[in-house]
């Protein structure tokens, strides 16, 4: 296995596109090293992208945040302003692994590892995050929900990798939240995850909403029906019932060692309501 740590985007693209064997992008390594250790992947080339400046910066462009795909969970957690703007995304980041894992793990890696249960993905989707992807054919913008296409699979072409994420400017009276269900309080993979992002008008009516579910399908879902259940309402009990029904209906989970179909479907509805309640509180404050 060879190891390279290029310092520019072009150099990285060149290495990845030019590798005849299997090339693996390395950001935090908290998934890649586990996969190497358990013989799930056997790369011929590791391309460490952490030395490339665009991958590591966090910026606020007049209210529109952007951050590099290799920024660590800890770096995001230490950014008080980002935490205040996007608490729902940070709910997800806070839940990745342990303190040790968050010291290295990145949202880019969490997304591109393409586990349907990744914790930062549903709130990034709910936030309408856009991924900037660079490759041999140049740069393109991809909504984050279109990056993962199935367990362990992304829509990225050979030589491509995610450079950074762009978030929209936040409308006033907006709030987002992410909750997941795990059997232990920490250190678990989500059995179900739900993110809700909503905006209220001055009368407290929801004018915009976006709901994303994790771990209940081959990839994180955008649940339009769940959003519709909230839009135009004051997020009252009736809206909450419709929300949880829509969330459960959108699930197409599998039975596996972490949860059954029945359980995931049921709890998806419960978490949708609880996440919406938190997002609502944050939107009002």
């Amino acid at each position, binding site marked *: 296995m060879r190891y390279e740590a290029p310092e520019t985007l072009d150099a990285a693209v060149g290495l990845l596109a030019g590798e005849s064997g299997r090339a693996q992008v390395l950001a935090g390594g908290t998934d890649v090293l*586990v996969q190497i250790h358990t013989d799930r992947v056997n790369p011929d080339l590791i391309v460490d992208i952490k030395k490339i400046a665009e991958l590591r910066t966090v910026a606020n462009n007049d209210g529109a945040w952007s951050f590099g795909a290799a920024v660590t969970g800890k770096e995001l957690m230490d950014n008080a302003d980002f935490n205040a703007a996007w608490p729902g995304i940070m709910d997800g980041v806070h839940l990745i692994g342990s303190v040790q*894992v968050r010291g290295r793990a990145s949202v880019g890696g969490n997304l591109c590892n393409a586990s349907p249960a990744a914790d930062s993905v549903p709130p990034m989707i709910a936030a309408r995050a856009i991924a900037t992807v660079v490759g041999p054919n140049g740069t393109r913008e991809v909504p984050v929900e279109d990056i993962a296409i199935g367990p362990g699979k992304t829509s990225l072409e050979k030589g491509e990798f995610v450079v950074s994420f762009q978030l929209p400017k936040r409308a006033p009276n907006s709030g987002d939240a992410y909750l997941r269900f795990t059997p232990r309080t920490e*250190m678990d993979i989500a059995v179900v995850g739900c993110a809700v992002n909503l905006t209220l008008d001055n009368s407290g009516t929801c004018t915009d909403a976006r709901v994303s579910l994790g771990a209940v399908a081959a990839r994180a879902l955008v649940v339009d029906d769940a959003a519709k259940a909230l839009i135009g309402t004051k997020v009252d009990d009736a809206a909450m019932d419709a929300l949880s029904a829509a969330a459960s209906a959108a699930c197409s989970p599998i039975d596996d060692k972490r949860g059954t179909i029945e359980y995931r479907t049921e709890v998806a509805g419960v978490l949708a309501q609880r996440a919406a309640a938190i997002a609502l509180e944050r939107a009002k404050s």
Partner: protein
Amino acid sequence: MAKQHVTTTVNGDAVELLCDQTQTLLDILRDELDMKGTKEGCGTGDCGACSVTMDGVLVCSCLVLGVEANGKSVETIEGMAEGEELHPLQQKFIDHIALQCGICTPGLLVASKALLEENPDPTESEIRYWLAGNLCRCTGYHKIIEAVQDAAAEMRGN
């Protein structure tokens, strides 16, 4: 495959070595530098026994490639005591019987030290959630939490 040359600092000492690209930081600490204090409990970042800090950030050394330590500063359990004097956390762990078999202890001490450097006055809940990445099977965590609370108080000068 030719080995990679790595220059790094471990517990303040400059270190130079050759390693395979597949070796983790845990591997080079234990096998190349003969520093056995950092332990391997799982190799997959689930147990925290291999905890070290790298450039001041708490990490699992089994999740860092050895070559990634190039140019960085690594702190392990062996660097925690100041000469003959134990760090307050080390002393409190002994005083409170926060260790039995001791295999998880180096990782827990490194993690606890990182906690108190970031948050000198943590609540019980904050301690438990911070240390959730360090598994212990012998103590049930009770005396570990008490030891961290006591060390934090002493370090604050209470």
